[in-house]
């Protein structure tokens, strides 16, 4: 099963654990197909629907949330339980959250 994993950062927990993801990438090995870091929400731009049709653009994310998406990984795991186990080992599970989403193939 393939999963897209959103890596989320909780600013209130910054510095409370080691954020280095290199050991996790080693652990995930070939189960991690790709992944990268994204610029912080301060650098987000959103294209919004406009009343009456069309779009307009504004700075900032589509939703104001405490935890914020700061990266992603694509995983290929046997099942959801294996993906949860792997996600729990990611350093940001302690410093924020990991949202696992099955890919619609």
């Amino acid at each position, binding site marked *: 099963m393939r999963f897209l994993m959103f890596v989320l950062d909780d600013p209130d927990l910054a510095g409370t654990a080691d954020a280095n993801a290199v050991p996790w990438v080693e652990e995930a090995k070939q189960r991690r197909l790709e992944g990268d870091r994204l610029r912080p929400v301060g650098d987000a731009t959103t294209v919004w629907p406009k009343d009456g049709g069309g779009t307009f653009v504004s700075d900032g994310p589509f939703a104001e949330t405490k935890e914020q998406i700061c990266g992603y990984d694509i995983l290929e795991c046997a099942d959801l339980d294996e993906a949860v186990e792997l996600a729990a080992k990611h350093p940001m599970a302690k410093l924020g959250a990991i949202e696992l989403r*099955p890919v619609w193939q």
Partner: protein
Amino acid sequence: MRYMLMITDDGAERLSPAEIDATPEFTAWLRDVESRGASRVGTLLRPPAEAVTVRVRAGRTLRSDGPFAETKEHVAGVEIVECADLDEAIAIAAAHPAAGRHPIEIRPFWPFEEE
């Protein structure tokens, strides 16, 4: 430059990947991306009801069903776009068939080798 386009929806209507591929609007968007000399890789996600969120607190793994936050819209799919600059990423997002219905958030990549 590389950008992630987070295509959101409110979960009301979902088309399967095959249905999306078959819509003329989506095909036209693919042609538009290609004509710019840009490229994209898309990933459609199963509905948010199938999301699982994992947090580790005080050494315990907390697993909850659903997305990380209760928001009006959720990410329905992502497009990873390689294009000239943010202006072009905005143009590509605004031309996406989902634009004008729900927000599309654009986030620049931040590779680990860049500080």
